[in-house]
């Protein structure tokens, strides 16, 4: 006779085996049934914020029905992979030939020029033809690319390859959320502060209110992520003048590379950022102690528990924030000083534009995909004016299709175009300078930091980190130009053979020549301004 304990263990194992067998059989039957009669379109992305998955699911169902009416049985399936592992997951599947039919890509998330050229298919010719799903709309005759607000020049075009690879789904911006009830209760204001001085005064009033023991509330909920967004807005706004000074091409476009080159040749001065650093220190006073060690969730919880009056967050989190908050927040731009502000306006030229609202990001078509036409059909369906309007409504994204307006909740996030280009935040210049900033920020922030000490620290270490970042930038340009050389030759030969349009060679040539010119210009030390 078997002991009772062993008998129960055996029964458990048998039950587990039976359950596994049943599950395997169920999956196999489902898979078999699906593969026999239904074609599945698999789409991967990392958009985990509230609204995006739901929006894709609804648009996917609508697309399935549309296909069914045309006599095609198709199934739409989302594969949602967390951002942290997405790049590795994507590369593994692309290399292994197991990538989904559509893959959401972004340069900062692993979509390098090399990866895009090797594993994805450019869709320039498709983007040049009208989107049939726009029939009957004002966009009916427009080429697909021209149905997007930027003509896919930024959002859809891989920067180093100068080809259209992606169909974007949204733009982004960063705004100040506030708790209207708390704001009014503490300050008597029914609207958010309209200028920088008033904003600081409101923060001060809230801080005093807390000190008087009225309520455990801080002016701004901070975390490493949210504080960085806030500081970058402030630095960009208060150092606008420096953006003009480092523009050596005269095309009004400045970014990290221009700052690196200008710094190398003494045309960029840390002194131009003094007011911006002072602003960061001031803002640091108004966040909860230890905010740099907090996660985004901590800051959101603080704001949600009404222990903070304000928080700075991106448009992509708007739906999640609204879902998590027990009150309806107000949304506004971070107010900036006016240029005439004697204390803060030294580097300000006016309102700041939402410089980085558009970037290369969207759904791309893997070369190994076996359902190319179906994947393109879904993208056309998703980005058609009427369907996209529904997508924008459901997801709460900032729209990128012409004629589609943001929903009421997202209207305050609409990209600001009537402003000057912001200065380049130091933590966006390059990896070495970002580390220097991040690792020493506490020397600027309260309770023990000071602008003078932080400036001295930067003055001592910035030349080295900026030089490192310039080297890294030069290496990346050289790598990119070398890769482009192969493509350029291939496109030259293919266009000569009539296989592709000459414009695909020449678009790449434009991009490569500009990059190479910038590379060699970075070695030139100007003796005087043009």
């Amino acid at each position: 006779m078997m002991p009772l304990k062993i008998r129960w263990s055996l029964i458990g194992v048998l039950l587990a085996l039976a359950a596994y067998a049943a599950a395997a059989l169920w999956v196999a039957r489902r898979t078999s049934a699906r593969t026999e009669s239904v074609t599945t379109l698999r789409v991967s992305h990392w958009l985990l914020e509230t609204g995006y998955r739901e929006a894709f699911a609804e648009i996917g169902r609508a697309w399935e029905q549309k296909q069914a009416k045309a006599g095609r049985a198709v199934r739409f399936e989302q594969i949602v992979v967390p951002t942290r592992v997405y790049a590795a997951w994507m590369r593994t599947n692309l290399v292994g030939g197991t990538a989904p039919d559509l893959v959401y890509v972004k340069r900062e998330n692993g979509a390098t020029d090399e990866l895009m050229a090797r594993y994805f298919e450019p869709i320039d010719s498709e983007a040049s033809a009208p989107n049939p799903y726009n029939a009957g709309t004002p966009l009916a005759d427009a080429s697909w690319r021209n149905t997007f607000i930027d003509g896919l020049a930024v959002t859809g075009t891989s920067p180093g390859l100068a080809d259209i690879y992606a169909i974007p789904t949204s733009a982004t911006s960063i705004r100040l959320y506030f708790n209207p009830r708390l704001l009014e209760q503490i300050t008597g204001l029914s609207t958010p502060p309209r200028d920088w001085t008033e904003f600081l005064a409101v923060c001060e009033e809230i801080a005093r209110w807390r000190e008087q023991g009225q309520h455990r509330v801080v002016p701004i909920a901070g975390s490493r992520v949210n504080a960085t967004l806030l500081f970058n807005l402030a630095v960009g706004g208060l150092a606008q003048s420096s953006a003009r000074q480092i523009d050596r091409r005269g095309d009004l476009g400045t970014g990290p590379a221009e700052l690196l080159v200008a710094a190398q040749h003494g045309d960029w001065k840390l002194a131009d950022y003094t007011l911006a650093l002072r602003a960061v220190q001031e803002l640091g006073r108004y966040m909860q102690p230890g905010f740099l060690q907090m996660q985004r969730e901590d800051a959101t919880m603080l704001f949600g528990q009404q222990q903070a009056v304000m928080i700075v967050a991106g448009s992509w989190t708007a739906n999640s924030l609204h879902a998590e908050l027990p009150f309806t927040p107000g949304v506004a731009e971070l107010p900036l000083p006016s240029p005439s502000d004697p204390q803060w306006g030294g580097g300000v030229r006016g309102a700041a534009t939402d410089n980085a609202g558009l970037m290369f990001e969207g759904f791309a078509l893997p070369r190994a995909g076996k359902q190319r036409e179906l994947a393109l059909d879904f993208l056309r369906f998703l980005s058609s004016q009427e369907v996209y309007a529904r997508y924008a409504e459901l997801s709460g994204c900032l729209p990128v299709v012409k004629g589609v307006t943001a929903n009421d909740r997202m209207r305050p996030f609409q990209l600001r175009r009537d402003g000057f280009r912001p200065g380049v935040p130091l933590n966006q210049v390059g990896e070495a300078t970002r580390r220097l900033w991040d690792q020493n920020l506490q020397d600027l922030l309260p309770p023990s930091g000071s602008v003078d000490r932080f400036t001295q620290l930067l003055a001592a270490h910035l030349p080295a980190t900026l030089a490192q970042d310039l080297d890294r930038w030069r290496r990346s340009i050289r790598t990119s130009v070398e890769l482009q050389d192969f493509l350029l030759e291939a496109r030259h030969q293919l266009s000569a053979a009539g296989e592709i349009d000459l414009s695909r060679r020449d678009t790449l040539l434009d991009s490569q020549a500009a990059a190479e010119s910038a590379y060699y210009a970075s070695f030139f030390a100007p003796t005087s301004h043009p």
Partner: protein
Amino acid sequence: MLALLALAPSVAPATDNVPWKRIASFDFAAETPASSQPSDVLATALSLIGRQPRTERNLARASVLLTELAQRSDTPEFAAAAAYHLARLAQMSAPGADALAVADQFVAAYRRWPGTFHGQLSLLRAAPIQGYLITDDTVARTQIDALAATAQSFTDRGVKRNLLATLAEIYYRRGWSAARAQQLTEAAVALGFDHRILAANLLAASATRAAAAGDLHAAVTHADEFLRRYPDDVRGYELRQLRAEWAASQP
């Protein structure tokens, strides 16, 4: 060269541009055709250069193939292409000031094959090297003036517009002549750019460079054109402010 080609696996000569399609997707590992067709030789050489991990042996093999192809007189387009890629190979190992010697290689390639795409492309590559790395202002100016004169005869529209744009920026950055920078920028813009962002960049630069040259009428005209063509561009607001200043300052 035949001996080298014999090292490659035996594959029929390409007739459908497959090697170029592979290179266009950065597939350098594939077998290359054992053919003496110039297109195949060039594709083989580029595949050897692109193959990872990059080895001295592959680079040397590519160099031999390109050198022999550059000496062939029956196919000037491919000979020019080979000379161009030989100079590019040399440029890979000369990232900084050493690149000046490579610029001479590019200029030589142009002089030998001035009517070809690669000959003209070679001069486009020489321009930023000479324009930014030659420290003596007089020497640099002489070289760039010569390139600007030569650019007028270019037949490849894509190369010509980029050379004009590159030269314009050199005149502007070096502070030699805002008027010449304006003139060359306008000439580049007139040829039309396929790359939308660069087209917008150049039009914005036309306006500011014209203003720098004191030609405020042209500056206003270019600003208007920019605002008409790129109404959603992030620089529109700033350019409108500048346009108002220029318009108010016009005599």
